[in-house]
């Protein structure tokens, strides 16, 4: 028996072919629309608006005042080119997580496919100018590393280690402490535990890190 023997009449074959094309249009069309919405929203986003730009400018001014001029320059250039953005989808997810009483914070992120934008998260507005400045330093560390390489490199957790390390090395200069914008401080320490300590074990012996690990219940 020939394996290529047709099972249907020619008109049936024609109809099946039309079906297959229509199904592909429906399947891949739906996928393309969803993917396009996701890509545009999480990589290009929308402007943070007048209030957001003002808040970022205050944080940039704070960085300048504290002598972090290189970070302030990068942040200032980003602000001038409307590079601080927000994602509606991530905003919705964070609000949903918060309304469900989940322990979830989202300060900011640098998108993978866009090298000149920083996305501001809901938690960014929960902290004061000191916390925002510290978060900006973290994100600017991402942007600087991001711009050095095509697509930022994979996996991005390696970038997180560098960004949290930079945030840790500058937190005193910025004025961040457990009593001033404590949420940003503890979040940074969680980042130190998760990303920096595996890459730089020597940080484990720093007194502030040891104290924070004890406070967070993560051992010595």
């Amino acid at each position, binding site marked *: 028996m020939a394996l290529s023997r047709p099972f249907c009449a020619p008109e049936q074959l024609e109809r099946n072919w039309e*079906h297959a094309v229509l199904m592909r249009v429906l399947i891949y069309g739906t996928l393309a629309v969803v993917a396009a919405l996701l890509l545009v929203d999480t990589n290009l986003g929308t402007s943070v608006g007048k209030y957001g730009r003002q808040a970022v400018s205050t944080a940039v001014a704070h960085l300048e005042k504290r002598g972090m001029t290189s970070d302030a320059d990068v942040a200032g250039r980003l602000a001038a080119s409307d590079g601080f953005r927000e994602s509606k989808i991530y905003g919705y997810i964070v609000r949903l997580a918060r309304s469900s009483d989940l322990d979830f914070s989202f300060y900011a992120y640098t998108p993978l496919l*866009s090298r000149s934008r920083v996305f501001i998260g809901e938690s960014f507005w929960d902290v004061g100018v000191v916390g925002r400045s510290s978060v900006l330093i973290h994100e600017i560390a991402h942007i600087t590393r991001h711009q050095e390489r095509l697509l930022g490199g994979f996996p991005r957790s390696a970038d997180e280690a560098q960004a949290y390390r930079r945030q840790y090395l500058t937190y005193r200069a910025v004025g961040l402490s457990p009593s001033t914008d404590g949420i940003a401080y503890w979040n940074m320490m969680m980042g130190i535990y998760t990303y920096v300590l595996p890459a730089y074990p020597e940080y484990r012996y720093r007194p502030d890190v040891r104290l924070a690990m004890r406070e967070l219940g993560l051992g010595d």
Partner: protein
Amino acid sequence: MADIAIILAYVGVAALLLASGDRLGERAACFALRRCQRPPLLCLPAWLHVSIALLIPSLVLAGVFVTAVAYSRNALEIIANNLELILLAVFFLTGLTGGFLCGARRL
């Protein structure tokens, strides 16, 4: 401008993965059809084929996230950080299921 070029390159890679997944899926369906010698392979309405083709990759993506959440917060963060890479895998998977289901209706 550089950002748009990167996004266009990403879309190109995604389209290539989708097309190769589709071809592979269709080949697999044709192979299965020949093996069973009984058309059509899946006697389901077209809308159900479309739903399955969209549902399977979504379920796999959701499964990855749920496993990550159950495993650790760190795993979830790593997934969120590399979401664009995972989406490429979803494109390939959608192509694979779409191609298979379209191929399974043919003949």
